[in-house]
């Protein structure tokens, strides 16, 4: 026959336990449903403990004057399966007794404790047996972390704290490209970041110059745009001949500057910037040129190049180069141009993909000239010629490859007629 427990009832609001004051039945005694079998005392009241259905008392666990928590098993009844089911015990048996192990443990060591006393002398203790341990609710999707924006991998998504820390240390998102993120979606967490920063301390370090930092800043900003580069060869012989015959010997870069300005003047949109839904055309065609200086690059500006013949610009150009090299450029010469010419050929390079300045759309590059055999229709033979690569890097939002190619070809054409420059 099934056994069902005699339980310490809930005795009132917030009452956790009660003391057994009398036990009115003995083992093997038969009891009726709702019969009071014990009397218990709380610090609020005295109360009878009843049994839920008729049966035979088979075990009394409770000890007189000992305190038991609400829900503790005070004894067992043996009842018929039908009575047990009617009383709401689906699975009566020893298992229930085991679940109430703390009560049994207490019963084994009865004390004369009054309600409200405890043997545990720990501050802030909540008695485990008095509180519910609830299983994780079923049917809830497993948690995989809070949502992060798509493609949050690495340092593309920065938490407010990450941003604040980076600002504090003067770092940019690009500086964090080497950190593998361990956060949701692979994002870099502050823990990842701090680990990275600590790890940097183990390396030799030197301060970057202000020039280096300025160039880095400009390049980082520029690369926020989709940039592309096109290139084509150009023959320099006529240019070089014209230069030889000119009294003030303009440099090859100046030819390219003038040619580029004239080409842009034919359609100023190509020198413009895209802001929102509008192309912002340049007010005047001011062209810069790159001058290498110690640990960086300076870009002096020549104003309104489309309105100035080549020969008039030679002297000012030479002045600007000197001023740049000695870092004594005037304010007028350090403003914002609409395009830059860089003669990377001076480093022996034949091809490069320079990055336009952040406020400009275009950077035109000139590679080193090389002697090449070129077919001559006049002499019907290969003749030596000087050829260099022209490159044009641009903001692909404004120009496409075709437009960029046409602009570059126009520059190449103009360089074939240096006398018109």
């Amino acid at each position, binding site marked *: 026959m099934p056994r069902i427990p005699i339980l310490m009832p*809930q005795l009132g*609001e*917030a*009452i*956790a*336990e009660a003391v057994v004051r009398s036990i009115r039945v003995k083992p093997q005694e038969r009891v009726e449903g709702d019969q009071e079998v014990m009397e218990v005392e709380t*610090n*609020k009241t005295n109360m009878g403990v009843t049994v839920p259905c008729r049966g035979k008392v088979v075990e009394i666990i409770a000890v007189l004057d000992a305190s038991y928590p*609400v829900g503790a098993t005070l004894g067992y009844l043996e009842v018929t399966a039908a009575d047990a089911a009617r009383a709401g015990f689906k699975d009566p048996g020893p298992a229930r007794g085991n679940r109430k192990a703390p009560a049994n443990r207490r019963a084994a060591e009865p004390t004369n404790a009054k*309600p*409200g*006393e*405890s043997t*545990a*002398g*720990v*501050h*802030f*203790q*909540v*008695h485990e047996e*008095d*509180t*519910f*341990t*609830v*299983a*994780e*609710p079923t049917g809830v999707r497993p*948690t*995989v*972390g*809070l949502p*992060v924006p798509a493609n949050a991998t690495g340092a593309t998504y920065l*938490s*407010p*704290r*990450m*941003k*604040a820390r980076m600002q504090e240390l003067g770092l940019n998102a690009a500086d964090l490209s080497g950190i593998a993120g361990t*956060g*949701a979606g692979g994002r870099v*967490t*502050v*823990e990842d970041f701090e680990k990275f920063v600590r790890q940097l301390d183990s390396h030799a370090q030197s301060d970057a110059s202000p020039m280096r930092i300025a160039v880095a800043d400009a390049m980082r900003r520029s690369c926020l745009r989709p940039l592309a580069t096109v290139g084509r060869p150009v023959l320099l012989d006529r240019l070089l001949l014209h230069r030889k015959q000119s009294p003030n010997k303009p440099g090859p870069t100046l030819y390219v500057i003038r040619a580029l300005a004239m080409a842009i003047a034919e359609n100023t949109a190509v020198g413009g910037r895209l802001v929102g839904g509008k192309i912002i055309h340049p007010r005047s065609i001011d062209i810069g040129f790159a001058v290498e200086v110690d640990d960086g690059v300076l870009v002096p500006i020549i104003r309104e190049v489309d309105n100035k013949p080549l020969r008039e610009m030679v002297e000012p150009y030479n002045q600007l180069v000197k001023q740049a090299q000695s870092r004594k450029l005037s304010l007028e010469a350090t403003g914002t141009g609409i395009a830059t010419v860089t003669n990377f050929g001076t480093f022996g390079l034949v091809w490069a993909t320079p990055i336009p300045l952040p406020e400009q759309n275009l950077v035109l590059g000139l590679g080193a000239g090389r002697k090449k055999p070129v077919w001559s229709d006049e002499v019907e033979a290969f003749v030596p010629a000087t050829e260099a690569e022209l490159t044009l890097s641009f903001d692909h939002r404004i120009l496409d490859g075709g437009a960029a190619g046409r602009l570059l070809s126009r520059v190449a054409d103009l360089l074939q007629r240096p006398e018109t420059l």
Partner: protein
Amino acid sequence: MNVTYLDAIREAQAKALAQDERVFLYGQDIAGFGGAFKATKRLAEEFPGRVLDSPISEDAMVGLAIGAAIDGMRPIIEMQFADFSSLAFNQIVNQAGTHFYRTGVPVPFVIRLPSGGNKGSGPFHSQSLESLYAHFPGLVVLMPATVEDAYTMLLDAVQLDDPVIFCEHKLLYYHLKAEKLPTESLPIGKARIARAGTHATVVTASAMMHEALKAANQLAEESWDIEVVDLRSAKPIDTDTILASVARTGRILCVAESFPWGGLNAEVIARVVGEGFHLLDAPPLRLNSRDTPIPYHPNLWAAHRPTAASITTALRKLLGF
């Protein structure tokens, strides 16, 4: 000697009565009967004429306390259950809360609210109303989580020159024990770091503080180091201590037993986001009871309010960001 949270409240009232003749107790069943929870047991005998049974008139109970406070007394009102204080809402928020600002005359009294859920207590004997009262100006709202705080904060509350809503947690009454009554305490309005940690901050109070500690201990087995801030005071909120904690951890979870819409958790998060946005490495989270009346059956009740298990789940979510 073992002292329960309830003993501490009883002893604090005894001490307040003994040391300050302005103090008297007024509430339902608190005199000879000693209170529904025995928080005033034998006090009527020890302090004749100063522990008074009131009619079942919550509005008039608080009105009377306000009048007595205006006249220089320091009444302590016992609401039989926090839930019933809604019947005194007008006196609390419109009379007590406005009085000092309007007239310049403070109204020092304490309303004790036996708060929070318990097995089988159901919709009308389980509520946590701290957020409700904290919303209104002119009230101080306290939420002791420990035996020590129950004792010292009640004594401090009686001495405070402003109305205090003292939210005691019924679940802690008999369950929470300490070796002895404390001799010193943090001042009113200061939060306490109940557990130091570095990976995430849990801001909580009252019974939920113990659930949060359990969750923190469980996560400690997985090498997570959780800091638990026991607010102690719902109003004022100790924003400095919270921000200092978030500065250490970068992550915050607020846990409260009150209903989810608005309230203490939302307030704490609003302050952290507003004043400490740059400290956050993860979106702030909160965990409240559900937005339904508090259910009767223990199975439903236990799933209605935050528990160590649900706090652990929320913390895992927070730590996984």
